[in-house]
């Protein structure tokens, strides 16, 4: 029973302590810069004092001891007995870290992992003079008192002694002040469990949905009223003509007509009043509901400083670790953000910070050599822009070299040479966000920028549905810009329909929506693409990516949603656009933890559940799908008449192996020769091939000579010859054609698709 109670309080203590420890950590940093800050010193003294008291209450005596020493030091600093010097920070941090550790281990025996007496000793040394000696003697005595509740009071009294000795008068004042702050707190804040707030928000979003339904009903009601008015007009016409009839014709109907007239008038009046009241109610309710929504969202909003404030300390530690001199500037700490979002941005921010300190900021010597101040600066700034928060992390370090990134990306096979060339510097910098991009030798080459950057991307884009931008000027620094929705609960989304189902795509990921003419779709190498502002965008049916049966496509213009990320763009063909609106994001429930392509669902006004698509997943699968088609096409061709054989004549090892792997991947058998003469010899020995791919400049026999030899041999001249070369001049091309080559591909436009395509066209 006793054990149980205590653990419950320990939990409370841990919660409370986190707050104080955070503030003390921040305090130490500030105190380094402003050792005379009276207010801060008082605050830190109070915090240490509170920590000491509450830890003792829950029986965490060791924490109490450490806090006690901190308090001693702060008392001396306050009373001017000593001055706070930056050298004290290290032992302060050590003490704070130890308290965190002790708090986390919640009273279990940790004497193996940490040496408390030694720390206490060091703290006593900092506290200086004789007093520390008798206190050091108290310390070992204290743990023994742990079990007996009575003596607990004694150390509390004892700790007050040193404080009283030096500041007799201010002490009672301090106590009063403490009480005041305590009271104010009780009056103004309530601690609520986050789950409780979440449940409340869930219910609020239900109310919002009900409200939308109500509005729909109001519209229906107005429709009914319009219908009623029409009926009435018709009726009055009928009545007028009825009045024109002679009385005996209408006979006994007169009374009924009279009644009907009255009834209709009454109905009209009643309906009108219902519509009026309903409209008033609806508009009042909608104001209240939107206020309710806003206010309840605000419940979960916290200032970003709750996350930012841990960085001065961690950047200080990192700088220490990497022998850098770094100053962190923080701006906009009071910008508010949904707690859920805040929890998620901590990790990516740490990654970026780490990168900035480790690889962005140069060593002091390098900086001075480059004419920069020895101390590097990292600026962490948050600001709100519309319904987004923008967080910028800017360093004045070495920057990212786009050429190195390009080269590394090509070698790694993320992009082809041509693609890399056509990329802007900005697009090239984005490559660092590719998954696994940096987990190789490339790391060193691009000076490590990108370590863990794929993680950053995952958090920001996939989890938070935000966006990520990096700008870098070589030699001047790098800026990461994270754009994050204010809340995870509500986003704007485009609703699209495909195969008779509706899906939501977060607007933040959409580049543009188009309606294209089917004639604009170009088929290239088994893929469908469109040209848009001098760029080629692959087009994929959304239903194919989602594995749905094909639906009817209506209309001549095809609706396309283009999404883009890190230099890649893909257009998704849908059946129709439904509209853009605010949606409330909900998870797929506890059973479906992670589903491909689907980030969550939303509930529309009519109660309809609509899946929200996960754009990075979609792009990934769309690319896989496109790759599969080309492979299938190649495989189908291969299957028709067994594998085709290609002879590659090429003196460069790299090019030869590159070409070999391209053809083998497409299902060909590959023979190689290191020059024209060897290639020709193989052919003359009776090697049967379906095509020859040759370089021009080779030792012993050039590609042109080889081509002439093949084309003048009656047995060999049927074999198609493809010249692949870096020579681009017209005369050379002419020489190749004159020699009898069937195709001529220059290396600058060389990519695997054109090569395979050309060979396939020639073989048949």
């Amino acid at each position: 029973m006793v054990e149980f109670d205590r653990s419950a309080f320990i939990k409370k203590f841990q919660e409370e302590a986190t707050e104080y420890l955070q503030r003390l950590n921040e305090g130490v940093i500030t105190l380094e810069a402003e050792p005379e800050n009276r207010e801060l010193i008082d605050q830190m003294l109070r915090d240490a004092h509170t920590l000491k008291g509450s830890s003792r209450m829950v029986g965490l005596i060791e924490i109490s001891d450490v806090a006690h020493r901190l308090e001693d030091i702060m008392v001396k600093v306050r009373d001017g007995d000593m001055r706070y010097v930056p050298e004290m920070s290290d032992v302060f941090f050590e003490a704070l870290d130890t308290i965190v550790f002790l708090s986390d281990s919640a009273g279990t025996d940790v004497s193996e992992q940490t040496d408390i007496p030694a720390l206490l000793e060091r703290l006593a040394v900092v506290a200086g003079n004789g007093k520390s000696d008798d206190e050091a003697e108290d310390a070992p005595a204290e743990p023994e008192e742990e079990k007996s509740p009575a003596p607990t009071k004694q150390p509390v009294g004892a700790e007050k002694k040193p404080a009283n000795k030096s500041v007799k008068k201010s002490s009672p004042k301090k106590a009063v002040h403490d009480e005041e702050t305590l009271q104010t707190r009780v009056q103004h804040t309530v601690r609520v469990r986050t789950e409780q707030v979440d449940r409340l928000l869930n219910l609020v979003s239900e109310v919002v949905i009900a409200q939308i339904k109500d509005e729909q009903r109001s519209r229906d009601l107005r429709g009914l009223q319009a219908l009623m008015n029409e009926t009435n007009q018709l009726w009055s016409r009928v009545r007028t003509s009825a009045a024109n009839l002679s009385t005996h014709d209408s006979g006994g109907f007169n009374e009924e007509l009279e009644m009907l007239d009255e009834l209709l008038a009454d109905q009209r009046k009643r309906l009108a009043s219902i519509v009026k009241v309903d409209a008033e109610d609806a508009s009042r309710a909608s104001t209240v509901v939107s206020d309710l929504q806003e206010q309840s969202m605000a419940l979960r909003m916290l200032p970003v400083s709750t996350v930012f404030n841990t960085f001065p300390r961690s950047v200080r530690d990192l700088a220490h670790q990497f022998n850098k001199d770094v100053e962190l500037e923080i701006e906009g700490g009071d910008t508010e953000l949904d707690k859920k979002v805040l929890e998620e941005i901590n990790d990516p921010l740490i990654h970026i910070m780490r990168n900035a300190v480790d690889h962005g900021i140069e060593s002091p010597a390098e900086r001075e050599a480059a004419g920069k101040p020895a101390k590097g600066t990292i600026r962490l700034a948050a600001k709100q822009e519309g319904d987004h928060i923008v967080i910028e992390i800017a360093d004045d370090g070495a920057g990212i070299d786009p050429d190195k990134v390009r080269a590394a990306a090509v070698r790694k096979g993320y992009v082809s040479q041509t693609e890399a060339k056509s990329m802007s510097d900005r697009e090239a910098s984005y490559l660092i966000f590719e998954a696994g991009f940096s987990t190789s030798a490339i790391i060193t080459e691009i000076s490590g920028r990108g370590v863990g950057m794929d993680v950053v991307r995952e958090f920001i884009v996939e989890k938070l549905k935000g966006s990520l931008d990096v700008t870098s000027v070589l030699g001047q620094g790098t800026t990461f810009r994270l754009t994050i929705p204010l809340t995870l609960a509500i986003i704007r989304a485009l609703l699209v329909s495909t195969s008779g189902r509706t899906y939501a795509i977060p607007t933040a990921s959409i580049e543009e929506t188009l309606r294209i003419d089917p004639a604009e779709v170009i088929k290239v190498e088994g893929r469908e693409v469109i040209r848009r502002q001098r760029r080629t965008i692959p087009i994929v049916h959304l239903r194919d990516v989602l594995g749905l049966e094909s639906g009817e496509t209506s209309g001549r213009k095809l609706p396309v949603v283009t999404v883009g990320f890190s230099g890649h763009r893909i257009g998704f063909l849908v059946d129709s656009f439904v509209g853009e609106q605010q949606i409330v994001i909900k998870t797929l429930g506890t059973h479906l933890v992670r589903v491909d392509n689907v980030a969550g669902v939303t509930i529309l006004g009519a109660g309809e559940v609509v899946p929200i698509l996960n754009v990075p997943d979609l792009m990934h699968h769309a690319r896989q799908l496109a790759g599969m088609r080309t492979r299938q096409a190649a495989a189908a061709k291969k299957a028709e008449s067994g594998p085709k054989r290609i002879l590659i004549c090429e003196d460069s090892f790299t090019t030869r192996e590159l070409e070999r792997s391209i053809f083998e991947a497409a299902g060909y058998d590959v023979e190689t020769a290191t020059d024209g003469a060897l290639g020709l010899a193989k052919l003359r020995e009776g090697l049967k091939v379906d095509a020859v791919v040759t370089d021009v400049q080779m030792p012993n026999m050039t590609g042109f000579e080889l081509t002439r030899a093949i084309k003048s041999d009656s047995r060999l001249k049927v074999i198609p010859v493809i010249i692949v070369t870096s020579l681009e001049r017209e005369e050379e091309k002419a020489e190749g054609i004159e020699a009898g080559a069937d195709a001529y591909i220059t290396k600058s436009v060389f990519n695997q698709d054109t090569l395979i395509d050309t060979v396939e066209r020639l073989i048949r």
Partner: protein
Amino acid sequence: MSSESPIIRESIAQQSLDILRTRAESLALAEDVETTVETMGLLLFRLGEEWYAVPIAGVREIINDFVLTPIPRVPEFIRGVMNVRGEIVSVTDIALLMRIASDGHRFERELPAAIIVRTDLCVSALVVDEIGDIVEVARDAVEPPLATLDRSQVEFISGSVYLEGKLIGIVNLDRVLEPIGENS
């Protein structure tokens, strides 16, 4: 229990479930002290020709007439999700999962009845052909699963019990409701 099940209105079903659950809980508490016959509550349901049961402790509520939203590229036995008063709940086709022939409401979006079940980890709605009675059986009466069940089925059945001449398989909810996609 009979094959023509009574019409259960949601609220009544909910109430009776609550009563039974309280009773089950109090019985569970009394367990240590008394040596009375231990019983367990079962909710019966029909899949095709056969009757199965879920332990009442794992049943949260019964839902009639719900609208299903399919989710692309999930395992075949996940029919999609539905909206239960603002909470999104997955819809599991338990017949398909256990490979049992059922009446089959394969292509309909409106489904007849579902039992929302829960484990410590997750909540899902099981699509069934018909919901039956709630019965109380002695724990001793629960036999190991039928030996003739094939291996893929046996893992979903934790035991069986004879009721009015019928053998009823008791569904192992922990196995049926494994969170999906956690590791991918």
